[in-house]
Each structure stands twice: as structure tokens, then as C-alpha cells.
């Protein structure tokens, strides 16, 4: 295992490429926290001094708290609903012999590849046509569409790796349906559920386009952030807010992805060592 085989031989060109790629990808993001502590309203080098003033400004501003609260009010129900629907979808896709199974999966996954802009415009047109007033509810509805594919994608491998005979074995050993769910099904799909909750909450929390089209009077945090971009003197506090969003979202996503892989390899009874 340790000796590099032909296929596993380290490839220097590929490594350099990977590093360059990652730097290009994340460098701009790293600038955000950097400048949010810079004692100047201009984003430029050289840095002028360390300050926490911009964070302090945020703290005192009521609209920040209002939009934060709005984001939470949208994100929590969206993540719960999306995960619940995802569980139901993943379960029926893997258990019941759905005709045209792969077509169903494709259909559920479609919002991943259709630009959110199109969805946003279409929904806005539909809602105004129906006379539905824009509010946080309509934002949540939009977010549900965006989040559902992520829920299903996180949960499907869980249910796919789930061996039907485990539930039969539980019944065979004397447990009824409820205890079987509690002792076997739930623990085995639990990591997927937690991961889906974390991912979808973060996605909803950071989502801009749907919120932009579908917001009413109350706006979510990303929209608030965007409105502040118009005022140059606000820019450092926008950076501070963005830093906080990164600080908050990144761990959530990473934890979610880590949990979603947890125990997946143990879950396949057929792949047992012999």
C-alpha cells in the first residue's frame, strides 16, 4: 500500500496545478477577512492598521439584526422541510420499485443545473400572476427548490447503501416496526439527515438570487448586504459582515460534508473483508 504503484505514483505537474487552482479559487475570499480588519474605508494595499471598528458598527445597526433574524426564519424551516422531503424521496426512490427511477432522480436534480436566475424570474412571474404577495414565505419557497436537490443528493447514498435485510433481521430478532426504525434505520441514515440539515440551512442562509426576486419588505442577510454596497463608506462593514458569513458558513458546510461521509464505508455489508 505504501509503495507508490504505477497508478498511485505522485504526479508533480498535477500537484502544482491543483495548488494553483486552489489559490486562484480561494485567494479572493481570503482578502475579505483581511480587509475587514483594515483601518481604512478603501480596499487597497498597503494595509493601514488593525481595527475592529467595522464589526462594532455592525453590532449597533438594527437592520443587520433584522435581516439576520429573517434569514434564520427562512433557513430553519427550509432546511427541515427540504430534509424531510429529501428523506421521503430518497426512501421511495431506493425502496419501492419506482418505474422510470432514473428519470425521477434526474427531475429532482434538475434545479442544480438550471440557472437560479431562470427559476427566480419564473417564480416571480407566476406569483405575481397569481396575486401572491412577496414575503419571506415566497423566499422560503424559492429556497426549497434550490435546497431539495442537495438534500436528495446527500441522502440518496445513505438509503442506497442501506441493506433491506437489516430491517428484516431486526424484525426477525423480535423488534416491531417502530423499534426497528429507531434502532436500525434511523442510526444508519442519521448522518445523512444531519448533513442535509446543515447544508440546506447554509445554502438558504447564503442564497441571493431567489431572495432578490422573491423578497417583500423583510429582506434576508445577503440582500441587506447587497443594498449596502451602494454606500462606499459602508463598504468595510459589508466586508466585516461577509467575514462573519464565511466564519459561520464554512464550518457548517465542512461539518455537514464530514458527517455525510461518516460510516458510509461500514454500511456496505457486501464490501466486507474476507
Amino acid at each position, binding site marked *: 500500500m505504501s509503495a507508490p504503484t504505477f497508478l498511485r505514483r505522485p504526479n508533480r505537474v498535477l500537484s502544482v496545478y491543483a495548488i494553483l487552482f486552489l489559490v486562484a479559487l480561494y485567494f479572493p475570499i481570503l482578502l475579505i477577512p483581511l480587509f475587514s480588519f483594515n483601518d481604512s474605508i478603501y480596499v487597497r494595499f498597503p494595509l493601514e492598521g488593525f481595527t475592529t471598528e467595522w464589526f462594532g458598527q455592525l453590532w449597533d445597526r438594527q437592520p443587520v439584526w433584522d435581516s439576520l433574524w429573517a434569514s434564520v426564519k427562512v433557513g430553519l424551516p427550509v432546511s427541515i422541510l427540504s430534509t424531510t422531503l429529501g428523506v421521503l424521496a430518497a426512501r421511495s426512490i431506493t425502496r419501492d420499485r419506482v418505474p422510470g427511477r432514473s428519470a425521477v432522480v434526474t427531475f429532482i436534480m434538475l434545479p442544480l443545473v438550471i440557472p437560479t436566475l431562470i427559476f427566480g424570474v419564473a417564480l416571480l412571474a407566476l406569483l405575481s400572476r397569481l396575486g401572491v404577495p412577496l414575503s419571506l414565505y415566497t423566499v422560503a419557497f424559492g429556497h426549497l427548490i434550490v435546497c431539495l436537490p442537495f438534500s436528495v443528493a446527500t441522502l440518496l447514498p445513505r438509503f442506497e447503501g442501506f441493506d433491506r435485510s437489516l430491517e428484516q433481521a431486526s424484525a*426477525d*430478532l*423480535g423488534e416491531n416496526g417502530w423499534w426497528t426504525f429507531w434502532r436500525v434505520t434511523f442510526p444508519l441514515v442519521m448522518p445523512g439527515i444531519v448533513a442535509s440539515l446543515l447544508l440546506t440551512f447554509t445554502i438558504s442562509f447564503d442564497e441571493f438570487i431567489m431572495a432578490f426576486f422573491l423578497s417583500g419588505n423583510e429582506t434576508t442577510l445577503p440582500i441587506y448586504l447587497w443594498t449596502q454596497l451602494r454606500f462606499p463608506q459602508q463598504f468595510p462593514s459589508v466586508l466585516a459582515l461577509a467575514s462573519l458569513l464565511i466564519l459561520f458558513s464554512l464550518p457548517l458546510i465542512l461539518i455537514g460534508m464530514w458527517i455525510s461521509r461518516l460510516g458510509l464505508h461500514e*454500511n456496505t*455489508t*457486501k464490501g466486507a473483508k*474476507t
Partner: protein
Amino acid sequence: MNGNDAYISIRNVSKFFGTFQAIDDVSLDIAGGEFFSLLGASGSGKTTLLSMLAGFEPATQGDIFIDGQSMDSVPPNHRPVNTVFQNYAIFPHLNVRDNIAYGLRKAQLPRAKRYEMVDEMLELIKLPGYGTRKAHELSGGQRQRIALARALILRPKVLLLDEPLGALDKQLREQMQLELRLLQRKVGITFVFVTHDQEEALALSDRIAVMQGGRVLQVDTPAGLYESPNSRAVASFIGNMNFFPGKLRRNGTAGAVVETEGLGSLRLPQAPNGQPDGARVQVALRPEKFDLSVTKPDDRPSVEGRLANAAYMGERSHFYIAIDGREEPVAVSAQNRLRFGAPPGSEGKLWLSWSADAVVVLDAE
């Protein structure tokens, strides 16, 4: 066996999946403490029959009784049976101890008592000290034993085993066969054992039901099946068999004779039941019932033949003997008792002989 001391009684059970009939009017009686095997090729309905015993699938028609009780409306979790699944179904999120103790929840035992019982089981399956291992750290053979322990700890009246040794390599399988048989004697539980491996069934079972296409062809002891198969299907599924078409001639009380193509006129020690005089039958003779010699034996029936082919198998050799009146050579199996024994009659002609009581008479197809 009469129906009264049957511990498991399967009465005219049929099973349909949609319009497909997986089980066709099966009736079986299995005695308490018996090691009973269901033997059949893949797709013959063994798993389906087993899952009706376990309660995962309802029977479309017929009844199943266990210990005199109809299982008709009894769900799996209330049946006095436990199953060792084809893929073992070890719970991946639990360690070995919690897997084995899974069914003990309802007994509400104190933890120390539970662990003690698990340790006893681990002792029994020869995996002491494995309690805290994770499921994915186990080999196939170990999983199989843990599945066994998980079922046995509940002291079921019946243990159902669905090809439990199928996933193991040959050597481990033979070792586990022996252990399984010893274990069954030790715990005295009725085993219903599914396999497609005829050697395994012969080696382990008290009795075997041979299945094909959802039907039971014959139920008998291993020796009964091997020596007295009731049909060509059973005869050729278990071991090898030579078939010789022929015609039955009854001589009143004096017995019967079969005029065969190839072996000539065979005098039967006992007239078979059933077939009338003149009926078309086939005579079946196992390869190892033949003897080969260079000179014609005078105390047993024989025909002259030629060695057409031979295969050396180590402990024994297979010879294929061409005889007159028959296209296909006769398969003969002989033990290699001599270290440097040349194949008999490899120089040319030889004599093929058999004992009269080895002859099995079957209906023609």
C-alpha cells in the same frame, strides 16, 4: 414420520409473485431437533420458502404450523424462529457485542447479565474477546458466526439458515460445515438449512428436500436420496449418474427383468412397484457402483467395453467406457488404491461389472 410429531408443518403452501408462481403446493414435515435441508439450484424457491417460515412473505395458499400453532397471522417478530441471512445482515453501526445482544432488549436484563450471555455465545462460536470489534473489521467467516450467535442467543425453537456458507471459500466452508453440525447437536435446535451445494447438504443433513421450480421433488435422508432417487432430476442433481433406457418385463412372482440398451437383460432382485409389464423405464447406476476388470467376472453381471477416456482426479479416477448399443460412454469412478496402478485394461478390451442390487429403476421421461 407421521404428521403428529412434526415440529414444523408446511401444508400445501403456494406462493405467487404477481402471476409468477415461486412455490408450487409444497408440503413438508420437519421434526424437532432435526437438521433439515432445502436443496435446489438457484431460483428453485428456497429463499422464498424460508422467508415464509420467517414471516417476511405471506403464503398465497396453504398453512404453516410451528409447534402446533398456525403461523398465518403471526408477524416475524413474534415467531419462534430466527434467521441467519444469506448476506448475514450484521448491523454496521453496532459492534459485535451489541449485534449479538440485539434481540435481548425485551428481556430487560441487567447489563452484566447481558454481557455474560454474549460472552458465552462468543465462546460457543470460538470468537472470544471479539465483543468490541466493529462490524466492518470482520471477515466473512466471522460475520457468519456472529449472525449465528445473534440468532442462537434468543434460544429460538427453529433456526433458519439461508446459504450461510455460500460466501466463504472452500476450505473455510468445509471447516464451518463441521462446526455447524457440532453446534446443532450441542444446542439441539431445529435447523432448516438452505443450500445449492449437494455435497454440503449430504454432509450436514438428517433429511433433505430437493427442490426444483418451486416444487419439492423428493424428501429423504442423504443416503436415501443418493441411493434411491425417485426421478431422473433428483438422480442427476445429486452426484453423477448413468442412465440406461429399457423396458420392464414382469415374470409373475419370480421378479422382474429390465431389457436395457447397453447393459443387456438386468435381473432385478425385487420387482419395482408401480410400473406395469412392458413399461418403458430407465435404469440408473452410479459411476462408483461399477468395477473394471481385464477378465470377465463370473459372479456378477457384466458387459464388455473399451476405455474411451480417463481423467485422473487424485483420490480417484474417472473412466469413460464405450460399450455396444450405446452412444454415450459409461462413466465409472474408481478409487486409486495403488500408488502406481495403471488404468485397468488401458491396452484395449475390459469388462464392466456391477452388483445387481445397485440398480435403480426409474420411470422413463
